[in-house]
């Protein structure tokens, strides 16, 4: 009996670990979607770049692991700012098909540049954590897993506070609700867009850098990550940050438990079935827009 509980506990812990990651990535996507009204198909590529840059900083340039993570994120943010300035600034009032096609093109572009620069080999980031597992009542985890959970949870909290408490966050939410009115009261829309895009990219890159320690990153990883992020966002309600967080955790847990007690081949399908159910019975998602 207690063995079954231990196994359940293990599945739950696995689910929370992955769920935190999903939540973080989906928050970034929601940020970009919510403020700029762009479905960022290149979101997974920000995750991938975060991972790869962290890998190169640590393994090839010998940078300290804890320094490399923020540096990798800053580099991706720099890229995001450049992209916003060069491309997305022009798409402020563009139709949805245009913006979507551009992000799809961007996704392909970044993936193949990564393939060209770094080859298809998957890389995991060398971490300074001891690899010996820790166990609590028979449930196993490692210092690295705990670090991942702590960092992702912290970033989610930071993101949440940013949206809710700061002036910037309020400005973003205002833009989100009514662009014209916000512009009229003096909110600089271009600035807000830049912050939203940069922050969204930063969250994805952070997830990639942190998780890259135990989930190898390869240039083609972006696609699956984007898909999972979209699933979470639809489940949680497009444009709701709380929805992204709760949706991410729920998806992680659902996948872990589903895989744990069902044939594992269909693990990924859980999210997709959930999306269809949501669409049929509650199209706005589980949470309303913020």
């Amino acid at each position, binding site marked *: 009996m207690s063995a079954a509980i231990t196994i359940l506990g293990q599945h739950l812990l696995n689910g929370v670990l992955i769920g935190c990651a999903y939540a973080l990535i989906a928050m970034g996507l929601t940020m970009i*979607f919510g403020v700029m*009204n762009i*479905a960022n198909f290149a979101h997974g590529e920000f995750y991938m770049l975060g991972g790869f840059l962290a890998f190169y900083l640590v393994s090839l340039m010998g940078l300290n692991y804890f320094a490399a993570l923020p540096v990798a994120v800053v580099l991706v943010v720099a890229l995001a700012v450049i992209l916003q300035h060069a*491309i997305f600034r*022009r*798409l402020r009032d563009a139709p*949805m*098909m*245009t913006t*979507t*096609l*551009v992000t*799809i*093109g*961007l996704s*392909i*572009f970044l*993936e*193949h*540049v990564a*393939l*060209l620069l770094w080859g298809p080999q998957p890389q995991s980031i060398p971490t300074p954590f001891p690899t010996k597992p820790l166990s609590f009542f028979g449930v196993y985890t490692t210092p690295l897993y705990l670090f991942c959970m702590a960092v992702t949870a912290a970033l989610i909290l930071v993101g949440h506070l940013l949206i809710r408490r700061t002036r910037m966050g309020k400005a973003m939410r205002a833009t989100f609700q009514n662009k014209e009115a916000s512009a009229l009261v003096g909110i600089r829309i271009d600035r807000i867009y830049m912050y939203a895009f940069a922050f969204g990219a930063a969250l994805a890159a952070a997830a990639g850098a942190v998780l890259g320690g135990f989930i190898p990153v390869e240039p083609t990883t972006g*696609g699956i990550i984007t*898909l999972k992020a*979209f*699933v979470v*966002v*639809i489940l949680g309600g*497009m444009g709701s940050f709380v929805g992204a967080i709760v949706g991410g955790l729920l998806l992680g847990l659902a996948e872990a438990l589903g895989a744990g007690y069902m044939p594992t*081949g*269909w693990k*990924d*399908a859980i999210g*997709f*079935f959930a*999306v*269809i159910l949501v*669409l*049929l019975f509650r*199209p706005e998602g589980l949470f309303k827009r913020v």
Partner: protein
Amino acid sequence: MSDTGRQRLATAAVCVALFAVPLVVHDEYYLHLFIVSGVFVVAVLGLDLIVGYVGQLSLAHAAFFAIGAYTSALLFVRLQWTMWLGLPSAALFTGLVALALGSVILRTRGHRFIIITVVFAELMRLVATNWVDVTRGFMGLPGLQVPKLYLPGLGAINIASKERFYYVVLVAAVLAYFACRAIVRSSIGRKFVLIRENEPLAESLGISAFRYSMIAFVAGAALAGAAGSLYAHYVGFVSPDLFNFSYVTIMLIMVILGGKGTLLGPALGAVLFTFLPELLREASHWRMIIFATILIVATLFMPRGIIFPLVEHLVPRRWRVRNAGAA
């Protein structure tokens, strides 16, 4: 010669050129590329209906192509149905799948619609990969064949050679083109465009966006399914790789860069973007980087696409048929 006369001559010249391809081109490799182009012409014409004319970005189209391929393959492998039965069945089944999917998602708009189409495609890929009992998963379904053509008086004609199969695909592409042209030139086509340009106005006139989008969605899917069937029998093999996102990408490039909403644009796009990647075989990653860049630049600065405007430019002003479809 009069204008109409010159126009007729030009059209005739194009037809003759298309029919003469296998007589002039003997290189099997190039014939192979022409055949694959033709298959994609059928598929992207269908995509143009929903993306170009109704204006909804569906990323499920490549999945419909693959579903058509698998349907035809399964009917061949399990029931020994030849392509003559398999193709219409594939088109029909794919259309039904689109009907089911559409009834759930065509009421949503905006980004949610686009994302759902991606989710659907991914789900189909999982089914193809995991439902091993039916689809044999990764092992795929090999051994598909091109059937013989039975004509009264002439008996069974072998059409499996590239020279001959080219004509099969040519006929399919021409039929698809005229079918789509008939749709877009009819009142249905005008309603598509009205929905694209001003949906609230259309609704207020009693034109149901849901119903007309559904027509485009199902018709487009059926064409994709038919194309998939042709492809499956020609290549001889289907596997879950057909559900890769790369097919979505290339079809989008064909339609967008070809010129969405023009039929001819995407058709030319299909040919160009079948030949181009093969000719640029060596530069694999650079090739995709360049395509992606062109896609971004064209979307930003050339919303009417590249190919169609170019072709239109070459056609004398007097001949240009007012194209109601072009965006």
